[in-house]
């Protein structure tokens, strides 16, 4: 930051804009109780109800409480990314707030960066809380490298689903956004085995999983504990990256079309 200030003493310090924009986005989400309590509270509650109670259950070498930690970690980080960006951005658009910001010299990238950074931060908070609960009350043992990989994947996953939140915000009117997101998020989480391990579900329901991005993220998370399915990791990574690029591509098309009609 100081270097930039020295090099361009009279121009705006863009590092500072990105930093402040991200900080206030995070503060806003934290203060918006309906967001922060729900996105942290639901995964924690579900994990305690379905994961911690299974602290002594083992299923063919799989510790259920640890298995479900991966599922609810994904469930939590996806929720914060979809709601934080999907609802936040669509209401900024509808209220004209984004338009006012865009008439200022603020780079649009700083705005998008801030939304994404806040989603990542919330994802990390949620996953850390779940992990702490699992270790303290669920008999879950994690090696430092497992924990490190989990947090890394949380960052990646938050960015992937932030791109989906972006597309939803551009497509859906602000007042319908929360409903639409729940309509996508909840069934998708269930069908991907984030709530209940997928092998416990009826066979015909299991067929949906491989077409859902949530499934591929959860399998990557499970593979950290060596609980993954028979599909190769490359396939999961390709699916997740392809999904993200698709979301970003469609978003950019819609954004430019809106721009032209403005």
């Amino acid at each position: 930051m100081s270097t930039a200030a020295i090099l361009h003493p009279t121009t705006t310090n863009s590092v500072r804009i990105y930093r402040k924009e991200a900080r206030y986005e995070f503060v806003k989400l934290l203060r918006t109780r309906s967001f922060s309590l729900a996105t942290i509270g639901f995964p924690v509650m579900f994990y305690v109800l379905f994961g911690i109670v299974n602290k002594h259950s083992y299923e063919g070498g799989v510790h259920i409480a640890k298995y479900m930690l991966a599922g609810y970690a994904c469930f939590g980080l996806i929720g914060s990314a979809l709601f934080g960006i999907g609802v936040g951005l669509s209401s900024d658009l509808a209220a004209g707030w984004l338009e006012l910001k865009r008439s200022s010299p603020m780079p649009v990238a700083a705005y998008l960066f801030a939304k994404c950074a806040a989603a990542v931060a919330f994802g990390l908070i949620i996953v850390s809380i779940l992990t702490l609960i699992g270790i303290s009350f669920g008999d879950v043992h994690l090696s430092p490298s497992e924990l490190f990989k989990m947090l890394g994947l949380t960052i990646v996953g938050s960015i992937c689903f932030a791109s989906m939140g972006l597309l939803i915000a551009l497509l859906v009117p602000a007042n319908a956004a929360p409903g639409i997101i729940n309509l996508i998020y909840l069934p998708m989480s269930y069908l991907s085995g984030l709530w209940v391990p997928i092998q416990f579900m009826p066979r015909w329901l299991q067929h949906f999983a491989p077409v859902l991005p949530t499934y591929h993220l959860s399998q990557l998370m499970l593979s950290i504990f060596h609980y993954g399915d028979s599909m190769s990791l490359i396939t999961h990574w390709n699916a997740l990256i392809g999904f993200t690029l698709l979301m970003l591509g469609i978003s950019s098309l819609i954004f430019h079309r809106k721009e032209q009609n403005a």
Partner: protein
Amino acid sequence: MPLTATAYETEIQPTAGPRIEHRQPVATLTGVTKRYGSALALDRLNLSLRPGEIVALLGPNGAGKSTAIKLLLGLSSPTSGSVRVFGSDPRNAATRTRVGAMLQVSRITEMIKVREHLDLFRSYYPRPLPVSDIVRIAQLQGIEDRLFGQLSGGQKQRVLFALALCGNPDLIFLDEPTVGMDIEARRGLWAEIRVLSALGKTVLLTTHYLEEADALADRIIVINKGRVISEGTPAEIKRSSGGRRIRCHTALSHELLQSLPTVTSVESSGEATIVTAIHAEKVVREMLLRDETLSGLEIASPALEDAFLALTKT
């Protein structure tokens, strides 16, 4: 309030000092047409803002006022014609650092404090106004640490006004700035807008309150259906509605009154006769000469509202 104004003026002097392009227009729309699908929002509109003036853009709903402001802010581009702000494209980041805007925003981030909103907006600009100056000008004393969502309608408008000032801009757009404010708050904001103008800042405002345009503007531009239909000082706009109104009891016939120079209309209102004339003094002199019984004489300027209605009537 005058104290605030003086203090502010002295503090701001160094930055407001060198003004090179003094006679150049600050912003122009030249032959601008803007279509939304088949709807024509602006129709070969010409508009030019000179440094330091307050211009009011008046027009009924759908006249194209907000479209004009969006074009000047670079938020949309014209179908044809050119938009220049400080001699360049309004979408340039460098141009945007010299412009401030208060738009009609239904809701801004509510869980952020007033002080935090100012801090964030100030960071967008290379030479922002000090927070203390912004707070003083927009009269935000005492509410800096409140969340935006907790403010009253008038206070929210003042925060939006403050955001327009954050970058210490040379050109300020105010879209319906006093909506939701009570009379006292509105007059307070008028005084602050005048301070900005006195500092050499150019202000373009749109308003539904004709009183506001009359009280503030150096120049009023009346637009309707995307075209400028009248332009001038508030006094000129009033005159263009057909002149002043002479009301009296007279024995003179309507035909004779109609034939007097500059008379635009003659009508009866009960016992009285109402003559509208551009040079009211000359007409009155003539009427008094011809009718010694003339009584109950009153001469009135039309309200800006009447002028406005006359101009935008279709």
